[in-house]
């Protein structure tokens, strides 16, 4: 196996699940998240030598996923893709309360694409404002306001549905 494949395989093993989680937070559908992550990984493979040399692998993958998710979520027929038909194999007892899960997913889905992306990138990916702005192609001020509005909207939506979550958030 060539070095490129070995390096890419190690990256794939380490990051595929993380990429899919980010994609899921952006689009709310595990099937679509998998497609987004797979698309990003295929493009990564093509550009691997350059990206690996420049240390830009994660940033590039994130950019593909975020932009594809935003583009997709702005399409009017996106509701078609909201089915969750996986065969889930998670222990229910160990998972968070079903109601909590639904609340957070619904609240995230309620956010406009830009706010959702800003929230996910800032508070899930832990990206600095500058990097988030570069990735979303907007100013740092826009990122700050989008993230703040998104977080406030999340809290409001969750609090409206489940008062108990106010403390946790």
């Amino acid at each position: 196996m060539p070095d490129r494949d070995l390096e890419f395989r190690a990256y794939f093993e380490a990051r595929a699940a993380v990429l899919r989680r980010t994609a899921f937070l952006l689009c709310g559908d595990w099937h679509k998240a998998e497609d987004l992550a797979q698309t990003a990984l295929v493009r990564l493979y093509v550009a691997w030598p350059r990206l690996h040399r420049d240390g830009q692998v994660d940033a590039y993958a994130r950019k593909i996923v975020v932009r594809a998710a935003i583009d997709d979520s702005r399409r009017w027929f996106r509701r078609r893709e909201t089915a969750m038909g996986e065969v889930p194999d998670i222990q229910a007892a160990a998972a968070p309360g079903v109601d909590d899960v639904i609340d957070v997913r619904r609240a995230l889905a309620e956010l406009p694409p830009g706010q959702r992306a800003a929230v996910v990138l800032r508070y899930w990916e832990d990206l600095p404002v500058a990097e988030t702005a570069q990735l979303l192609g907007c100013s740092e001020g826009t990122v700050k306001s989008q993230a703040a509005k998104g977080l406030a909207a999340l809290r409001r939506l969750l609090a409206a549905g489940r008062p108990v979550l106010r403390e946790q958030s």
Partner: protein
Amino acid sequence: MIAKALAGEPPLRIDYDAVRTSGRRRQARRHLGIAGAAALSVVAVVGAAVTVSQFGAGPATDDPADPASDTVVSAPSSTAPGPSVSCADLPVPPGALGRAAQAGPASAEDELQAVRLSEAFSRATLPLPPGVSAEPERPPLCPTSSGSWSTRFTLRSPAGDRGVFLSLVRSRAPGYRDCTLLATAVDCRVSTAADGTTVRILVTPPDRPDVPVRVEAAGWRPDGTAVSVLETGAPGDNPAPRILDDDALTRILTLPELGLSRSAPASTTTSAPVSLPQAPSQRMADRLTATLTTGTVVPSGMRAVQVPQARVPALAFFVSQGGYKLTADLVDSQGAGNLFIELSPPAPDGMAPRCFGPDCEAITLPDGRPGVLARTIDGQVVTLTLNTVSPTGTQVSIMSRNRSAVGEQKSAGPTRRTPPLGRDELIGIAINPGQHW
């Protein structure tokens, strides 16, 4: 808070080989595109010449390698057991856009299971309505790298073609088997089949005339096998209607031939049930920090220095990406190097760390857990990484690099000759029993 949205994460089904193959094709197309642009005029001339020369000639001979001929000539019927095509040659049915291919690197046990399943499935009778045929007639069950087995085939009917994707995985009870988490737009029903299988069928109706209806059926069988069937179609002006009704789907989900053999040991990718830990919190980060003792992490003669990325003091965990991270520079007279620890939620497929690359060693930690120790060199920057999994499933990754993280530039060179922590020190951190949540 956001991490809660990830509850119920299904096993990862992105297949490495499929990604690599697609990447190579894309790369080849790109190269072809560059060459093609230069040769466009030549191609046009040659193409015109060929067209003229074939004008009036008889029909071309059937080329078995021509995918177009496959769509016209149906597979010959045979009574011989076994799949009619290999996993590598499995055609892509309608509606497969963007989905992962089935085949992937699998354990020897999973490969054996695949052979057994494929032979059994080739003897099964699919409950197809009159006038409908499956192509290929006997598709193989292909193992995937994530510990499942899957196949796909096309249903040909007078009203149009539909794609079917079928997969099997060892069920880990109890799981979400109801309709609670689904969007209201989805028609969902749950029932119990005669053999005790819990069957859930989801129908996502099209909200546009050119979008095909999507039907997903999942069955949790008493034999411990979870089967899922997705029937969908290609979008178009007049997409093909649904072919398999609820009864047919239920019969597929309960086919005795699709039971995973208990005699074959489960691979490492499916043996352990996955449980989600609590959502990360700063309180838990503080508890994790408290489990680290300076003597364990920082060798004698070294000191830990905070790095800006951490936003917390050196040797303190912080919440990040649904898990916890720690990053600090370790400094001595040789210079500064970086220590990075990442604790991530259990892998969705319960996958144990595996070795890739020439400088990688599968090891057994003193407490008996498996681990993978890898050494990578990028220019003069050397990185030692130890990956393991805690008894509770937490993925632990510990990295030592001979480059400082303070003012780190991706293209910067090393800031000391060797990584600050060696193999033994990384193992010493990995066996910290408190390193999970």
